[in-house]
């Protein structure tokens, strides 16, 4: 044992070792431009479109906070964020940035497109109407629906027909999942489909 301690001291006491240790020549640590850090705010106004929350794959990573002045602002919880950058790409107002995502979207003329697939399991559905009455999109279309489940137009996203929930206009869905959360029978499911597409020219 005494022998090994001596050999350690002899090793570390070498001039060459001490020199390399103190004057090592490595490249300085700089963040490359293409690196994606945690998303940060660009300063543009958040309109509470919630596309970021919809796109985020990491539960609890992003939240849109109501500010005291009445506005909204996304907040990243770094412990949960996996720095994928989807929220940056998803935001229609460019509120977030991270690395070169916004620039490459601009040059490549790409955007994220969302669509939602709503599935109703008619074996489980009781036609209670909770989903259709609670759906915030239905609410803006037909007040009679949100005040007690009477469908007065076929423009509605969801309604109850033949004793089951039916989806009339899936393209109007914003993917908020309210229906899914409020269904007592786990009969309605909303799946988010996220696609990178070429933006139409005029939107550039």
């Amino acid at each position: 044992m005494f022998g090994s301690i001596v050999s350690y001291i002899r090793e570390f006491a070498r001039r060459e070792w001490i020199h390399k240790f103190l004057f090592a020549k490595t490249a300085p640590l700089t963040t490359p431009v293409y690196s994606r850090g945690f998303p940060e705010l660009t300063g543009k106004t958040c309109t509470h479109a919630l596309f970021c929350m919809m796109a985020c794959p990491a539960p609890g990573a992003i939240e849109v906070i109501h500010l005291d002045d009445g506005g909204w602002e996304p907040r990243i919880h770094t412990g949960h964020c996996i720095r994928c950058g989807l929220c940056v790409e998803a935001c229609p107002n460019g509120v977030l940035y991270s690395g070169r995502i916004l620039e490459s979207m601009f040059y490549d003329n790409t955007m994220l497109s969302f669509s939602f697939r709503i599935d109703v399991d008619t074996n489980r559905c009781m036609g209670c109407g909770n989903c259709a009455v609670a759906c915030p999109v239905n609410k803006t279309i037909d007040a009679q629906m949100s005040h007690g489940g009477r469908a007065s137009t076929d423009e509605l996203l969801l309604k109850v027909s033949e004793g089951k929930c039916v989806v009339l206009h899936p393209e109007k869905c914003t993917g908020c999942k309210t229906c899914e959360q409020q269904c007592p029978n786990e009969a309605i499911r909303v799946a988010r489909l996220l696609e990178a597409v070429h933006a139409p020219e005029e939107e550039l």
Partner: protein
Amino acid sequence: MKIEDVVCTFCGCLCDDLVVEVEGDRVVSVENGCTLANKKFMGNNRLKTPIKRDGGNWEKVGLDEAIQTTAEVLLDADRPLLYGWSGTHGEAQTIGVHMAELLGAVIDNTSTVCHGPSIMAIQEVGHPGCTLGQVKNRADVIVYWGSNPIEAHPRHMSRYTTYADGFFLKEAFHERKVIVVDIRKTETANIADEFIMVEPGADYALLSALRAIVRGKGDMLPLNICGVEREQLFRVADICKSAKFGAMFFGLGLTMSRGKYKNIRNAIELVEELNRHTKFTISPMRGHWNVYGSNEVFTWISGYPFAVDFARGIAFYNPGETTSVDILKRGECDACLVVGSDPGAHFPRDCCRHLAGIPTIQIDPHVNATTHLSRLQIPVAVTGIDAEGTAYRMDGVPIRTRKVIETTYPSDSEVLEKIYQIIRKETGS
């Protein structure tokens, strides 16, 4: 042809916003109604003509003959029982009570096996209730105790309580809190903010504990009350006390479990206690679409809501003695007329056995469990589909049900009126 604002005559919600499409004498589609409504309107397994038991077989008989037989059976009986009435309209119920009076019969409705205890408690301590419209427009705390509306009253939450936007609640379910108390995790409990799982038979204790907490005497309670953490009850009591307007709904889980009408009395007294802090109401979740109507009609004619015995020539009411189940159990009644209900599916075995042994006659559109106990069945029109009439919603609001198709079936009141006229003639009144 599309007909708007059709009333669903299935459960006590009596939804009056259905849109049905009819073709000739058939309903082809139902909008806005729940699964139960859909099945009711689209069902097509009706009995075609009156049928009479002939030994082991059924034979078809004419309507007039069936009516005559019914009148004779009732006139011959010493202690006839006229049971059911929750599945028919008020006009037919009225004839029923008058008929019972002439016959010196016992007339009883389905409350006898559902919310009879609620009525008894209300007779003792009153009913701090309100209409469902008030609940929809004002209530920010909803309590379902021993009831599972998703299964039994599917649209209760979306039409009147949790989800429906109201005058003072623009963001309905975000602003309302839902508390569910039940012995198992029901579908309704899945969407509740607070779910209390109560041990079977412990409702009375739990209600008493909540009363103590609301009274400010919570410290003297044990840490665990019949399997429920005291902390949870403190939390629930706080939610109730801080409500702007609370509404409690209770079902058979409370009326028909240990304690029966004492449970309801205790619940009403809890609500009374809560009214020292805020506005709070309590209402029963009535099951049949017009069971409330049968209580109303019975009461306005005889003074009593169910189990009315006319044997003495005057109306006499003593639940436990004049209630159908007790009369049948004692083997007292010697003829029974069943209208708009299915005791064969709900009564205890002894009672069904007795019904099978006496001349039991059923007036009902469909073949059901009671058919197998009956000697004669007269099919009638379904109120709300091919007959109209008045019904009372679970909160006591009368609603005129509509006739959407034309059929050849007579309505309940037409059949009963004919029987009544024969009885009048025979009894010389």
